[in-house]
């Protein structure tokens, strides 16, 4: 957090209209701050390389998938966490019902823990990323059946 203070990085203003960021510092809820490499959660020291197929077209805007399911995508590049702390249960699992403002995961970028809302309504049918994995901008994180 020292870094955040120093460089004013708490002022996270995102330009994309579909990006919403929640910053914990100073919020009423207790801040969710992961220690680097806590017990029970493998630290992503040497993450597996991401390899989107070269030359593939840019992913279509969410919601859009091969079937009628919707996708929840990452609004930033960072590390994906499925639960608020290693001890807590996941925000959502397959079968969970989500609404637009349901927090579905956290993507950490520069020690800032961004709570990601679903932005769509429906039932989670697939979690596409493993806990602790690096994710890219716009990478699909969940598949959601609308309704």
């Amino acid at each position, binding site marked *: 957090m020292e870094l955040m203070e*120093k*460089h004013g990085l708490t002022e996270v203003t995102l330009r994309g209209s579909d990006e919403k960021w929640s910053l914990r510092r100073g919020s009423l809820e207790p801040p969710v701050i992961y220690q680097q490499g806590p017990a029970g959660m493998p630290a992503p*020291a040497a993450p597996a390389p*991401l390899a989107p197929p070269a030359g593939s077209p840019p992913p279509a805007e969410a919601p859009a998938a091969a079937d009628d399911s919707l996708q929840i995508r990452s609004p930033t*590049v*960072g590390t994906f966490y499925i639960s608020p702390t290693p001890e807590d249960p996941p925000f959502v699992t397959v079968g969970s019902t989500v609404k637009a403002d349901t927090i579905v995961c956290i993507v950490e970028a*520069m020690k800032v823990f961004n709570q990601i809302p679903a932005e769509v309504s429906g039932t989670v049918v697939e979690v596409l990323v493993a806990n602790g994995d690096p994710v890219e*901008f716009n*990478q699909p994180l969940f598949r959601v059946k609308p309704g």
Partner: protein
Amino acid sequence: MFQRILVANRGEIALRIIRACREMGIETVAVFSEADRGAHYLDLADEKYCIGPAAATDSYLMIKRIISTAEIGNVQAIHPGYGFLAENAHFAEVCRDCNIEFIGPPHKAMAELGDKVSAREIAMKAKVHVVPGSDGLIADEKTALEVASRIGYPVLIKATAGGGGKGMRVAMNDMALKAGLKSASAEAEKAFSNAGVYLEKYVENPRHVEVQILADNHGQVVHLWERDCSLQRRHQKLVEESPAPNLPLSVREDICKAAVRLVKAAGYTNAGTCEFLVDADHQFYFIEVNARIQVEHPVSESVTGIDLIQQQIRVAAGEKLDFKQRSIPCNGSSIEIRINAEDPAQNFRPCPGTITKLRVPGGPGVRFDSHVHEGYTIGPWYDSMIGKLIVHRKTREESLACLRRALDEFVIEGVKTTIPLLRKIVSHSAFIEGQVDTTFVERTW
């Protein structure tokens, strides 16, 4: 040495850095915007991460996302290339605070040299000539006439808040100065709500000569000789070469030594460039420092045989330069031309599009640095450079012959390019004779 470096840039310079890293056995992490997804050069990185949409402010300029990628990519250093965040001292500081080395100068030196006033002070302290002028704003007509008398006509009246030529006048004598002061001041007031103006000696038809510097963290500063970049169009360099033609060796050595003094005085390390104006009498005046690698670095690589990107990485990793000033040669003649996707018929407006056919020159003396290929789409998002053609031959005459035949070999279809203009330039007698200044292109075409 670093095991893993993030390349915080795109296009040809990203490819250039990846190439250097591959030769050094260093792994690379590339970042890309959605506009660059699928670009061939990204396949040459060991890892690649999409960091945002096409707009640079949301991707290549977004410090947080670059740093976040550096963390998940587990790199030890970031190479910023040129443009984007390369001369952003704040970014350099953030990198280092995050224990990621920024491959570039100390952020303090970068900030000081980035400010024109403090850069000018450092230069004067290092006994490097700057363009003579008023020390600060002109209070009244009387002061202006005194300053003009001291520095000599012609003088340039410049608005302190100026830009784009607004509030700028050239005065050849007292009468013109008096008239110019009033109109420049009024124009500046109207354009910038700031009527403040200052005076500078007007360097007529100057040549633009810059010196490539390399400095390690152990006190050694060397120059890699100079580049002549006089051939510009609207302050955009079109052609760069080394050595500067028709500049006596003694002058070249003096400029290079001045640059070394200046860089030492600034506490600057890594690669950098000191830019000078050179007038018809071979007087040279410091203008500014470019605190980064430059587009035209290959011409210095050609004549010295030193790989500048590799040296940047070595310096950032704390290594000492493994050569001395006296062992840096200036072999032969090297010329670079920039090929841009621009339409000469439409006032050189950037001309995005898909390259439907591409034939690139090759053979002896030819280097081509480019990330494009047949089928590549040049988008509207970033700069319009398609690639850089660099030739290196024993003499300037041979380099010019090589350049002409290489330009003739180019076939680029699908987008308009600056090649037709470049062909005219390299066949023009003024360029062949090395007699061009920064106003040549606009005066001639």
